[in-house]
């Protein structure tokens, strides 16, 4: 296919899309109107299954199979990040230095940590009743744990966060969702069908399988985000590549011209690296003179 042909295919497709999109936009109901054909049916179906939060009913009952796909996307994404950000052969782990945290920051973080943790667990548990659910609550729970990093340092976080447990938790959450789906098949219905008794509307046990699937998602998301952030934190705080150590703090732009000055000045290249900076700051005349020397050298070459 030549470039022109491809361009024409694109233009025809884009024009067709633009026309259809414009027609569809003019056919939309007005903003904020009361006519919601899908909404009415979803609310009816949700109330039939005694699920007060219609969004949770759509996500975990009417479209539970879609949510399995979304959960798997997150699972695969975390897995990919773990593989990409692993410690490679030439990298080494360095224990980070203990950090000093301002007392007010520490107090604030320690005060909000249990609160945020509780809110996260509450949001997971009440997904079938009030806004939120496994995904939102899971992210809040995982973020809450990292307030410990704000309050103290990375070593404290590592001590209370056994990563293996969270890796198992992520897999267990994903598996629990699938197992719940197959349990419905064993009960004589379709995959992920809502087969449990629906309970009383707006209580914790209402909604049949919705709270179970919510909990599975909550476990998967919370563990997944913890594992994901742990990999990022490892790379940012602990893992060191061969090039990045204390001596790499010296700017190399200064050293390179010196090495290329040739055999005329052997004394300077023998100096240890750390002496580079104070020499430069001796005075404007000295540095100016050395720059002139550099220029002359360049001209000779």
């Amino acid at each position, binding site marked *: 296919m030549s470039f022109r042909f491809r361009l024409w295919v694109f233009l025809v497709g884009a024009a067709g899309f633009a026309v259809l999109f414009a027609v569809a936009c003019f056919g939309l109901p007005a903003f904020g109107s009361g006519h919601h054909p899908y909404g009415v049916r979803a609310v009816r179906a949700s109330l039939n299954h005694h699920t007060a939060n219609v969004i949770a009913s759509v996500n975990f009952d009417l479209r539970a199979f879609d949510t399995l796909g979304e959960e798997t996307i997150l699972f695969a994404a975390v897995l990919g990040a773990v593989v990409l950000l692993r410690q490679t052969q030439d990298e080494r782990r360095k224990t980070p230095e*203990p950090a*000093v945290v301002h007392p007010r920051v520490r107090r604030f973080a320690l005060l909000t940590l249990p609160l945020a943790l509780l809110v996260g667990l509450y949001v997971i548990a009440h997904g079938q009743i009030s806004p939120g659910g496994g995904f939102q609550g899971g*992210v809040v729970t995982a973020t809450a744990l990292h307030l410990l990093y704000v309050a103290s340092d990375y070593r404290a976080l590592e001590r209370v966060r056994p990563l293996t447990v969270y890796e198992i938790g992520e897999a267990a959450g994903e598996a629990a969702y699938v197992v719940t789906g197959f349990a419905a098949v064993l009960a004589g219905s379709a995959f992920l069908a809502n087969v449990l008794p629906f309970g009383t509307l707006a209580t914790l046990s209402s909604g049949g399988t919705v709270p179970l699937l919510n909990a599975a998602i909550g476990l998967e998301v919370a563990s997944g985000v913890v594992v994901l*952030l742990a990999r*990022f934190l490892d790379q*940012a705080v602990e893992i060191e590549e061969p*090039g990045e150590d204390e001596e790499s703090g010296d700017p190399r732009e200064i050293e390179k011209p010196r090495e290329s000055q040739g055999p005329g000045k052997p004394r300077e290249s023998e100096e240890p690296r750390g002496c580079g900076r104070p020499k430069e700051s001796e005075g404007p005349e000295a540095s100016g003179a050395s720059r002139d020397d550099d220029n002359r050298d360049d001209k000779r070459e």
Partner: protein
Amino acid sequence: MTDVLIVVALLLVAGAATAAVLNRDPVRQALVLSFLGLALALLFTFLQAPDVALSQLAVGSAVTPLMILLTVRKVRRRSGNDHGADEPAGRER
């Protein structure tokens, strides 16, 4: 009243998003992105979508900026800045 709130939230979102694009420093961008997540969460709340607002609040204004900041720290360490300079709490105990 609701319309006014929606318009204000939309303006906040537009302002924060433009600021995120115009900022060139990734660290500042992460902070502006966090603010954008907050503005979007407000907008979703006013549009009566609290579930989406909660997701936006948790992911858009907390986890994503945190991941950006951690990535920036890693990249700066590699490029040879003095380590610990970008971590204000990194002094000796």
